[in-house]
């Protein structure tokens, strides 16, 4: 049954400073709400446990995308539409732009935020494999100050994360050193539009002198958290893009994942798709020529 709006407090600070001050005063009481694409679904279902909502939608400090020579700093309140429409993201971080383009429909993309996707912490979250592949850092902020943590250490288990109750994600930083890489993104779901993924992949790599270099493979929906495949990646380093190498990588990749049966798919199907996606990526990467 839907929740009763009379049961909820709602604060809408106009500046980030005010928002973190409220969190500092009662850190466990407030649930931040940005575009509401997850929180309002819980509200509709009557499962929203928090009774005090802190709106951080459209806080200007959270919606900036800043470019410096070495990195792009994306405000956590940036929407999927912001990501898709940003020239540098589209050009240099196509894995993220593509993930944004297949997150929900346009209406969801106009409201859903990158920070929200991280904090909602679904293993099926569309943007998170891209953050793993690019080795993103997160900037977390609170009334105590800011800290910067590698995203790879952020999600520690199903819906578990290294975020203190008084903290917000302020920004996501991506290093600008992948523009020469071949990138490959694919989402497998029940249908193209509006579906949550059964398996998704975000992968990067180079081929130089006929050898795989710096291959990065990240997957969604195959473990309690978005997953990179360090053993598979390591095994590919310096190897030629040949069938036996790729077949070995396929076996390693399947062994590194921990898929489950759930309402969207089965573990067996997911394992098969993981293998297919890794092979599809490596074959395409093998055809890409990075030798000048």
């Amino acid at each position, binding site marked *: 049954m839907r929740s009763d709006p*009379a049961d909820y407090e709602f604060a809408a600070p106009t500046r980030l400073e005010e928002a973190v001050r409220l969190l500092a005063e009662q850190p466990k009481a407030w649930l931040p709400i940005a*575009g509401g694409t997850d929180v*309002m679904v819980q509200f509709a279902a009557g499962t929203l446990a928090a009774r005090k909502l802190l709106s951080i939608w459209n806080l200007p400090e959270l919606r900036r995308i800043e470019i410096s020579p070495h990195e792009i700093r994306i405000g956590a309140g940036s929407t999927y539409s912001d990501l898709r429409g940003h020239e540098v993201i589209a050009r240099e971080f196509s894995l993220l732009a593509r993930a944004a383009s297949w997150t*929900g429909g346009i*209406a969801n993309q106009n*409201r859903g935020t990158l920070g929200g996707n991280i904090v909602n912490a679904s293993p099926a979250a569309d943007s998170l494999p891209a953050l793993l592949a690019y080795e993103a850092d997160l900037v977390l902020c609170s009334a105590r100050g800011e800290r910067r943590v590698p995203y790879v250490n952020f999600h520690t288990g199903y819906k578990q994360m290294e975020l203190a109750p008084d903290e917000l994600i302020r920004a996501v930083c991506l290093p600008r050193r992948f523009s020469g890489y071949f990138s490959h993104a694919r989402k497998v779901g029940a249908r193209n539009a*509006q579906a949550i993924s059964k398996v998704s992949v975000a992968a990067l790599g180079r081929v130089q002198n006929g050898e795989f270099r710096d291959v990065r493979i990240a997957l969604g929906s195959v473990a309690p958290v978005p997953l990179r495949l360090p053993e598979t990646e390591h095994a590919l380093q310096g190897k030629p893009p040949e069938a036996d190498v790729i077949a070995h990588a396929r076996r390693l990749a399947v062994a590194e994942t921990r898929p489950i049966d759930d309402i969207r798919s089965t573990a067996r199907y997911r394992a098969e798709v993981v293998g297919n996606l890794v092979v599809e990526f490596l074959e395409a990467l093998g055809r890409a020529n990075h030798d000048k």
Partner: protein
Amino acid sequence: MTPNRGAKREISFVVNGDHRTVCVYPMERLLDVLRQQLSLTGTKEGCGEGECGACSVLIDGALVDSCLVPVAQAEGARIVTIEGVAANPRFSALGQAFLDCGGAQCGICTPGMMVAAVHLLDRNSAPTMDDIREGLSGNLCRCTGYLQILEAVAEAARRTAVR
């Protein structure tokens, strides 16, 4: 800004060009405020969880599902509902194209489809079929099988281009 459990507050916004002030709980859904307080019942409720697009409106020009918007987040916004679209002569070709192409059957999805189409055509006056599919991808229809709807939007774009 002193939050108060159970307290209604006044929220003001512009709906279809008119300044409106409503007295609401902040967490009321924009969808309910539009339908119940402002009697703008053209905006429909389908799934209530942001999957079906029946409740699509424009907020400051952006397509959104009004079932997922706490009304307090619409403070100061410029909202356009299907009633605002219907009153705009710029979009008369769209409604006629839906009629001509069989783009509406039971009609529940139609307002949301048309608002999504307006959002698309505002940004892209000559969309390809792929553009139209993507622009309407957040809107579900259980009657038409979609082809008539897609064709209606394409036809509206053609007619508008001719004029």
